[in-house]
């Protein structure tokens, strides 16, 4: 008895010790995080903290450092103001971060805004108008010191960019043109063109360069704003007086687009093919095999300065019927919800000061928006390439050239649809021009005419809904407690139950807060019109408007649904067959089989983005491994491998993703392997004695035994396949057109590119219902085929 007492005491002590350690860990982590916040609070007490959000994409770590040192200098000059800097990396990460900060009601005081977003951001009321600050501050920030086009790029009058209220001070800008490989020009016996060259000269040069060995005349990117820049040189644009007046059917527009398309697709090697997605246009030039590349702005210069193999220079955009160029510019803008606007303005002035601009200009990345600074050696640095720095300024200096920013309407859908259709028509050439134009017009008008575009919806009744939700939750909780009380058994059972509930409580709490609440919220949002970039309170109640728009009017929704279904139909059977085959192989009793299993399993633990980038290379129609292997094989039967994500994307795009998904069958394979090893050996022996061969044994014995595993794996694969995102986002971004725009990718586009969070929530719920229905159907119909008795208990 005594020894048992000692044992019990030791056990109690150990338990107490463990509890103490656990409590200490929890307390320590709270104290640690809390003290960090407290320290920050204490440090800014009595002072002011400003938050600055920016990116450093092409500028790299140098841009990061320049902003940092500029901010520290500001802090030194302005005691009492602290500046916290957030840099999420490139511009895409930047905008996502900005969106979440805005939605959380914690916007940064100052942030970059690309000129293309001015209309949408200011329409959403995110940006603080700056005219008053400028007016109150005569002498320190004089708008006339800036290149006028750069300032006008941040003016918006409610419908068009270019005039009206000022929403940002340009920090830098660029015009666009072509980068020329001087070595290739010399080889071809060509002189560099003048700053005032024409498209005829341009294409003649491209054709001459294309005749050199292993050389392509020119890279010509077809981003929407570049296409509009190109159209403006012919005196036309995609819009008339407003964006309600789309002028794509203008004969001059069509002619100009047809010419560009013909250069690329009717001539060999005059322009880069556009099939290859391997490199961005800018990187193609660096290979030295492309005579000209553009139209790019100044942003490629830091990258091109690293080129050591050849000499290069820059020329502005050629002219057509008109002399025209565009500017692309980024501003420092202020949040309309900034709590320290006066201080923020002070900092903004500092950030666009001549000193800051000169420092940025030295990076080569951009041109100072202050005219005087752009004329100094900070920008016109004769020691660095390109020699013709003044070529960037030439269009601005000449009074004859029309230089304006490329403006976009407040609704980003316009640019997205236009971009994807132009891409299909001009770059990959999969779509005839008139079809692309018709496509665009249909999609844009469907979007414009959507009842969701009406502005007179009532505010979403958050208060009522919240009270109702809380009431329902409370009633549910009470019901649970009551049922629990009623059903309580003897004391020992109750103790056990209490302990059990205590054990699962962290999970239940986590689920309630991080899963249940967001789910309910997303359902509510699906009944609302919310941009996801404004406060939740701004949401409008649209009833089932999102759902009716999706089902009745949104052709892109239907396309994305089809693309996803097509993928599922290919990927799930293919993946399961492969996994099962692999598992059968891995079930062999061979020396070192564990190694093979690990090798097969490994890819499925690799991270998504890296894998996607790798596979983009694999599927490249011109340089990819897959087509390089297929070409000689298919050549035997006179066929050519498909252009997976190009002209053949309608048929081969989703299957390409399915093929890629085979790389990660390792997880399913492991489950199959476990299932295979559970198949009773005697059954296979019995079948063997019954004269069933190895193949027959597989189909007549193993497969029925494995059927529950097959069902489980198939369901999991099915659910996973409906959620394809990363691969498509990284590899094709949904292109060409919408041919690889998977459901979840489209959902993401709606939520984060087009600021339609309500619409995206509705899509999420539709997906949930689709997957649920398919799962139920599968479970019901498979009953006769699945033999659970095969599983050993």
């Amino acid at each position, binding site marked *: 008895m005594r020894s048992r007492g000692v044992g019990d005491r030791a056990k109690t002590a150990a338990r107490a010790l463990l509890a103490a350690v656990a409590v200490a860990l929890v307390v320590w982590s709270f104290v640690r995080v809390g003290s960090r916040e407290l320290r920050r609070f204490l440090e800014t007490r009595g002072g002011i903290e400003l938050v600055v959000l920016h990116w450093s994409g092409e500028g790299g770590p140098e841009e990061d450092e320049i902003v940092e040192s500029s901010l520290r200098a500001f802090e030194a000059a302005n005691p009492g103001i602290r500046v916290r800097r957030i840099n999420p990396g490139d511009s895409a990460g930047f905008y996502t971060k900005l969106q979440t900060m805005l939605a959380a009601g914690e916007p940064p005081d100052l942030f970059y805004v690309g000129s293309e977003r001015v209309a949408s951001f200011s329409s959403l009321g995110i940006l603080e108008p700056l005219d008053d600050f400028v007016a109150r501050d005569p002498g320190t920030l004089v708008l006339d010191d800036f290149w006028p086009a750069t300032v006008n790029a941040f003016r918006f009058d409610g419908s068009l960019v270019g005039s009206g209220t000022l929403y940002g001070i340009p920090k830098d800008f660029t015009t666009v043109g072509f980068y020329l490989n001087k070595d290739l020009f010399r080889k071809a016996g060509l002189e560099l063109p003048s700053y005032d060259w024409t498209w005829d000269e341009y294409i003649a040069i491209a054709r001459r360069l294309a005749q050199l060995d292993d050389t392509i005349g020119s890279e010509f990117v077809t981003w929407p704003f570049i296409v509009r820049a190109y159209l403006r040189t012919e005196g036309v644009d995609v819009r008339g007086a407003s964006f309600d007046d789309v002028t794509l059917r203008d004969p001059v527009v069509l002619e100009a687009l047809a010419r560009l398309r013909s250069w690329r697709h009717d001539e060999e090697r005059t322009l880069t093919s556009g099939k290859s997605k391997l490199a961005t246009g800018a990187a193609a030039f660096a290979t030295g095999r492309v005579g000209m590349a553009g139209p790019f702005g100044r942003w490629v210069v830091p990258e091109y300065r690293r080129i050591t193999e050849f000499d290069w220079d820059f020329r502005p955009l050629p002219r057509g019927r008109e002399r025209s160029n565009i500017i692309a510019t980024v501003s420092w803008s202020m949040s309309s919800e900034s709590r320290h606007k006066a201080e923020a303005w002070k900092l903004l002035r500092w950030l666009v000061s001549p000193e800051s601009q000169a420092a940025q200009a030295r990076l080569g990345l951009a041109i100072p928006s202050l005219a005087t600074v752009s004329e100094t050696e900070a920008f016109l640095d004769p020691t660095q390439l390109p020699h013709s720095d003044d070529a960037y300024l030439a269009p601005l200096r000449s009074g004859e050239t029309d230089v304006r920013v490329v403006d976009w309407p407040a609704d980003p859908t316009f640019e997205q649809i236009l971009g994807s259709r132009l891409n299909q028509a001009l770059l990959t050439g999969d779509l005839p021009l008139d079809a692309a134009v018709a496509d665009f017009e249909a999609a844009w008008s469907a979007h414009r005419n959507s009842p969701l575009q009406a502005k007179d919806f009532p505010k979403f009744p958050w208060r009522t809904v919240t009270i109702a939700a809380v009431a329902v939750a409370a009633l549910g909780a009470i019901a649970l407690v009551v049922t629990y009380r009623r059903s309580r058994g003897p004391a020992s059972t109750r103790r056990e139950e209490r302990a059990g509930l205590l054990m699962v409580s962290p999970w239940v709490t986590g689920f309630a807060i991080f899963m249940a609440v967001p789910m309910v919220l997303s359902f509510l949002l699906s009944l609302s019109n919310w941009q996801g970039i404004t406060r939740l309170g701004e949401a409008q109640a649209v009833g089932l408007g999102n759902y009716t728009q999706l089902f009745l009017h949104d052709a892109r929704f239907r396309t994305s649904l089809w693309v996803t279904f097509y993928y599922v139909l290919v990927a799930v059977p293919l993946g399961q067959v492969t996994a099962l085959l692999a598992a059968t192989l891995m079930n062999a009793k061979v020396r070192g089989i564990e190694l093979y299993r690990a090798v097969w399993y490994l890819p499925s633990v690799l991270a998504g983005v890296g894998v996607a980038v790798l596979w983009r290379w694999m599927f490249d129609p011109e340089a990819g491994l897959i087509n390089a292997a297929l070409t000689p094989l298919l050549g035997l039967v006179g066929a050519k491998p498909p252009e997976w994500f190009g002209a053949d994307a309608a048929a081969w795009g989703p299957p390409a993703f399915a093929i890629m998904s085979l790389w990660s069958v390792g997880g399913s394979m492991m489950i199959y392997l476990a299932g295979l090893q559970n198949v009773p050996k005697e059954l296979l*022996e019995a079948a063997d*004695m019954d*004269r069933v061969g190895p193949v027959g044994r597989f189909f007549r*014995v193993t497969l029925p035994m494995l059927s529950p595993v097959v069902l489980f794996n198939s369901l999991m694969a099915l659910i996973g396949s409906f959620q394809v995102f990363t691969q498509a986002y990284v590899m094709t971004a949904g292109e060409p057109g919408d041919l690889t725009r998977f459901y979840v990718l489209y959902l993401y586009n709606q939520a984060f590119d087009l600021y339609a969070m309500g619409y995206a929530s509705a899509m999420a719920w539709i997906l949930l219902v689709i997957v649920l229905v398919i799962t139920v159907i599968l479970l019901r119909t498979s009953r006769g085929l699945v033999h659970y*008795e095969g599983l050993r208990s």
Partner: protein
Amino acid sequence: MATIELSNLSKTYAGGVQAVRGATFTIKDGEFVVLVGPSGCGKSTLLRMIAGLEDITDGTLTIDGRRMNDVASRDRDIAFVFQNYALYPHLSVRQNLAFGLERRRAYPSLLTSLLSRDYRENRNEESARILAKVDRAAETLGLVPYLDRKPRELSGGQRQRVAVGRAIVREPKVFLFDEPLSNLDAKLRVEMRAELRELHRRLKTTIVYVTHDQEEAMGLGDRIVVLKDGLIQQLGTPDEVYAKPANTFVASFVGMPSINLIPGRLHRGDLVERFVADAITIDLPPSMSAKAPPGPITLGVRPDRLRLGAAATTSPWRGDAQVGAVERLGDRTDVILRLGPHRLVARCDPRCAPVEGGTCAVGIDPADVHLFSDADDGDRLSKSD
């Protein structure tokens, strides 16, 4: 119907473990032979070698004079009944029974039957034959009401019958049973035992049967093969094995309760030979221990041969033992006795059972004893005839 000859059959696994060592014996046509022994004795391996489910490392196996070492199991014309029945869970009882026949069709091709009329007629005829065989087997085994059920809807005994049925419809030369009754409860096991015996009497097919249960082995086998550590310990009819166990292992393995083994010494006098142990001295007839040298020896006496109480009075040797536990089993009573350092088990008539805690006279008749050498698994020293 087949004769199976095993000649020096051995099995060595990759790790060097010798599961079966030089098994040599012949199973006569139509004979019911039971391989019995504790787990790990190699009995299942031996059966699986006969079945062709295990490769033969050494020695030869012939069935009806044909060497079978390299013949695939499917071509040996044998049927195997597995311990866990190995029924196809996704097939009905009827399909399970027909499975082996379907696979052995002379006219298997459905396609050809569509094209050729003769073929079709032959095939249909064959189908009818298969159905008839299945029905007959089902009737024999009382499975008719369950023909359309899946195995999971059957009781253990019914599954067992299906497994047997699947074997008999094939009408093979040899049946091989691998512990087929061990998953059944005790009562059912006894019932099935009788049925199997009956089946064998009717079919007259050669049967090799593996079990770890000596009672099952004794009850079923025409002859039994006792195995230990891969070696055959004894081969004989149940009576022979019981009456004249080849060594102490067989002696104690066969028979329930187990035989009493008493270590002692053998003294050889001029006229008599005498077994001496603590508290026990038995004079033995000289003929009995002809082979035995004087010295340490083990004496065995089966519990039912120990004479208790009044019955002991006529025994040449008797002593007084203390009575430990008394187990009344209805038709008989088992008594645990303490005699000096020895613990003895006796089986007696319930009417003359002693009282727990008392003393009791116990007698041993020299005619009832077995002598073994005192080594582990000591060999039998008594004359074998």
